[in-house]
């Protein structure tokens, strides 16, 4: 495959690449302000959510959002999810997945650029870094400077701040899994479970490593999402792009060039777009996997264009189609038209359909549930008067946060009577009354007897009826077997 353009004379590179340090420059602009806002909102949600309260009565926790792993319950405001209802959680995960597809097809890698925790925390760490060590140039100078007391002090202050932020990040996580005020008190007093301290330690370490040290390396080398997104982007996807037909040929010193009557592009090669990039790429090389579309280069370039008196948007959010149209001198399609197209609408329909289906299921779900299992060893017992006895384990789920009384009944079983384990045949009746603890599964061993008969198998029904004003009932099929 040798061709004349091959650069075969270039020496092969090493098998391992050093990390090129990135010192992003501070920048202000509309996208920067949007990023501030999103950072504030996401961090607030993350830190405040576990402390919200929600009254569920005496028998359930009052934490608004709680993942009770030991008790196998997931509380989210007015919704309580049991393990057998895990499909709601699965549905949420599917919605999150389709939501990512939807966002990607509509506005490109907006998740990467604004909302991904890796982005938010890296951004936070970089602000702290600039605050302690100074902006880009000061940081570069400090990196090269010899180890003086002042450099040491700055580095210690920086990494101590990183560690504090990381500990706060890991520390907030555990409050989602236990009562936050209690756990906070226990945690500080040293009385919390060892797993709480372990979780905080692990999350502190990962936050420090991923956000404080590895940063863009996570996006470029570790995260699968950029690869998937690269495959999902098409000519209608919004990306951050450099308009090379407008910017090229780029040159510094436009005055000289104008004097020499050279035709130059708008790009003055000031390198501001590279200086502000948190992943250290040059957007002018075209779309690339390292670009998380945080749009800070747009802010930087807009500022420069304003200074040199050229229209903004040399680097801008645009689709490939927009670029082609603009290059040909046609007007850009309106943004709404770019976003509303069959692909995004299909994703949105699927996303919304799952959401509505789950809401509907949530509204329809009953809070009483009965199941019955026949004891198979032995299947039947002949009693001394010739009657036949079967035993069943009947389970009633009381999904309300209060104790409830239920009546278990038999239907379609001629002459059938029953009693609870611990009772006796003298107490046998058509119904038995049981109580189930709040938010619990009541398990009852029930003996059922019927007079001798010809049928080997009798299909019948166990019913459960709540004995309080709210009511509610459920039934389940069972089989009675004879010798």
């Amino acid at each position, binding site marked *: 495959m040798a061709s004349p353009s091959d650069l075969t004379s270039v020496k092969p590179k090493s098998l391992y*690449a050093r*990390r090129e340090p990135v010192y992003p420059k501070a920048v202000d602009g509309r996208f920067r302000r949007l990023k501030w806002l999103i950072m504030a909102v996401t961090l607030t949600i993350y830190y405040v959510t576990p402390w919200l309260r929600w009254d569920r009565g005496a028998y359930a926790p009052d934490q608004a959002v709680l993942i009770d792993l030991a008790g196998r319950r997931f509380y989210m405001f007015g919704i309580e999810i049991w393990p057998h209802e895990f499909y709601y959680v699965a549905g949420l995960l599917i919605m999150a997945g389709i939501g990512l597809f939807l966002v990607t097809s509509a506005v490109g890698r907006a998740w990467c650029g604004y909302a991904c925790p890796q982005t938010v925390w890296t951004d936070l760490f970089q602000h702290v870094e600039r605050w302690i060590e100074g902006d880009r140039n000061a940081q570069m100078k400090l990196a090269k400077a010899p180890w003086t007391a002042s450099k040491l002090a700055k580095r210690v202050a920086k990494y101590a701040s990183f560690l504090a932020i990381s500990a706060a990040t890991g520390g907030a996580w555990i409050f989602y899994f236990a009562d936050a005020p209690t756990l906070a008190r226990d945690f500080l007093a040293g009385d919390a479970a060892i797993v709480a301290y372990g979780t905080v330690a692990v999350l502190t370490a990962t936050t420090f490593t991923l956000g404080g040290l590895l940063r863009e390396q996570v996006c470029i080398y570790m995260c699968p999402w950029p690869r998937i997104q690269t495959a999902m982007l098409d000519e209608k996807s919004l990306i951050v792009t450099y308009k090379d037909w407008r910017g090229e040929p780029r040159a510094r010193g436009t005055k000289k060039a104008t004097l020499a009557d050279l035709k130059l592009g708008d790009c003055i090669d000031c390198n501001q777009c590279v200086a502000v990039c948190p992943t250290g790429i040059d957007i002018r090389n075209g779309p690339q996997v390292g670009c998380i579309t945080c749009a800070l280069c747009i802010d930087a370039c807009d500022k420069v264009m304003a200074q040199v008196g050229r229209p903004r948007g040399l680097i801008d959010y645009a689709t490939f189609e927009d670029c082609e149209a603009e290059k040909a001198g046609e007007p850009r399609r309106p943004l709404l038209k770019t976003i509303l197209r069959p692909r995004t609408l299909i994703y949105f329909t699927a996303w919304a359909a799952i959401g509505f289906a789950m809401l509907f299921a949530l509204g329809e779900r009953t809070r009483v549930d009965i199941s019955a299992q026949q004891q198979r060893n032995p299947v039947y017992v002949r009693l*001394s008067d*010739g009657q036949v006895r079967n035993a069943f384990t009947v389970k009633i789920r009381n999904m309300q946060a209060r104790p409830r009384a239920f009546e278990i009944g038999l239907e379609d079983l001629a002459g059938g009577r029953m009693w609870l384990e*611990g*009772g006796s045949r003298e107490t046998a009746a058509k119904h038995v009354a049981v109580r189930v603890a709040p938010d619990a599964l009541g398990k*009852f061993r029930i003996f059922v007897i019927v007079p001798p008969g010809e049928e080997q198998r009798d299909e019948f029904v166990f019913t459960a009826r709540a004995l309080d004003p709210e009511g509610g009932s459920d039934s389940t099929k069972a089989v009675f077997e004879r010798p």
Partner: protein
Amino acid sequence: MADDKQKRIDQPTGTETMGHEWDGIEELNTPLPRWWLWAFYATIAWGVVYMVLFPAWPLIDRATGGTLGWSSRAQLEQELAAEQAKKAPLLKALAATPVEQLPANPALMQAAVEGGRAAFRVNCVACHGSGAAGSKGYPNLNDDDWLWGGDLKAIEYTITHGTRQPDHDATRFSQMPAFGRDGMLKAEEIGDLAAHVRTISGQQKPGAASQRGGALFAQNCASCHGAGGEGNRAVGAPNLKDAIWLYGGDSETIQATIANSRYGVMPKWGGRLDPVTIKMLAAYVHSLGGGEGAAPVQTASR
């Protein structure tokens, strides 16, 4: 194979290719990040440390021990000991509570039943079956027919002392005569008796044979089985009127039983099992559905 000279540099990325191509598709030799290399070295170091600290290298009859001295067996023993310690107060409470008072304490009764279930699996299933349903000659413990009594105390006694345990005075003991083998009754008389027994248990209609058998019954059997055949638990004489047959209720089997008698034996478990285990076994057997004399309690779980 392509040699070094054919490896070209991909212009857009500036990266060397691997030097092979399929239908125009080439592979870039993108360098790995150096931190990845260090992470790889770190995993090797971790592996070495792990091998030193924990059992690792298989030898012929064991593995290298590891400097921490950890083993899965020791961990299991530790966990079992912890479990035993957790159960200690329960066992103490069980030891202090007479078996007939267990039902008054539902939680303790439940614990006893669960413990008995486990002990039953180990000690009793060989004869009584895993579901305690018994088989020919081995009583079904689920039903409501009891040879020696079906309340908690009687069951505990039977388990402790066994049935017809040789050389043990307190054992449940009785001996039915072998009416045929020992020549006490003639074959026709045994046939008549069997007809009578099948009549009082509702298996056949009265007839001349059963009437003759009734008279024989009053002379030979009523002292133990009762005048009506209702049995006598003091001597473990089965109720002959009910629907439950330990050896079989057909005419042939009943005749064989009368002719040769039966001598069912259960070993005494006192001495082999501790009193608490026996108590738990009694509670379990009692809970199977036929237990007698327990106050009816309506329990709710959890």
